[in-house]
């Protein structure tokens, strides 16, 4: 199980993924790596709304 290893997050590798990706894909790259840590079937980022009159929206990384 990957999650049972020490220091699962490799910051250098993570930043490399972020910088390699296009800005619009940077979050998806991290989310995908995050999902791999726990064998997630799906990963969804919900962005907090900027006012109460806006409902939160979702992006579906990876």
């Amino acid at each position, binding site marked *: 199980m990957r999650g049972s290893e020490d220091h699962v997050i490799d910051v250098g590798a993570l930043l490399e993924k972020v910088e390699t990706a296009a800005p*619009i894909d940077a979050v998806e790259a991290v989310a995908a790596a995050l999902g791999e840590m726990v064998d997630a079937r799906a990963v969804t980022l919900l962005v907090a709304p900027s006012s109460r009159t806006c409902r939160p929206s979702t992006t579906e990384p990876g």
Partner: protein
Amino acid sequence: MIVPVTDRGDAIGVIELLLPRFPSDKEVADVRSAAHALAYVVIAARRHTDVFEWGQRSTPFALAAEIQRRLLPASYTCEAGQFTLAGWLEPASSVGGDTFDYTLDRDSLQLSITDAVGHQVPAALLATLLVGSLRNGRRKGLDLAEQARYANDSLAENSAPGQFVTGQLMRVDLHTGIAQIVNAGHVLPLRLRAGRVEEIDLRVEAPFGVLPGKSFDVQPFPLEPGDRIVFLTDGMQERNAVDLDVATALADSADLHPREVVHALGAAVLHETGGDLRDDATMICLDWYGGPPRGRTTEQGADPDLASAPA
């Protein structure tokens, strides 16, 4: 599993993972750390793309709202060792020109809340002029009185007669804990101390832009460790929100994080107006802990001692 994506108490979002099994404690801890890193990735990435702005909106912004949004600080919440603050702006359907702002340096916390006269693009442009002059003065190293005078004169010189902005500028010395304030025609702040809500009595001077060359009084602000201070604009208190009892709402939300307090007040004013705000409703909630400048306790981007219990 749902994990917060947070930086300094600023709730950027949450990440939801569909897992094939119940996660171990170690996996939960790792994912929380990764979600914290994700907060920084979002902060960096949104400088290059509109995709996160899209994510924060469910309806298109009017031009005035677009201008107004750019006047607000990059983060609406800041947790620090000596304080936590959060701001919130609930825009009216006809944008009213409200703003809030804050900045922190080694010696002081400075914050402002302002309300430009009028509505829509003219109000947003007037607010742009006022906020720009406040930031310009602040970044030139002007003290509070000089910032107020500079903003007042900038407004008077660059806007049409009859245009004005109400506002409050506050500075807290982080070494002494002494706070000072300028009040330019603005709604008085509220203080929650020992379970009791009171309006703080300040001398109210002319709004910015009315009297060219005017000097503003820098008034002492009574601030003690444990105080919760709430700054408002009049959209919280007048017109069709008149029935909202802000003081009661504040007392009822005493146990909440400042971020949750401003959300609760925003929700309350929307409820009171049936979702039809006639004026912007804006607020800043400052929890002052006092003591010397120091770091804070944090876990994955938020202070666990400040977090509310799960709903």
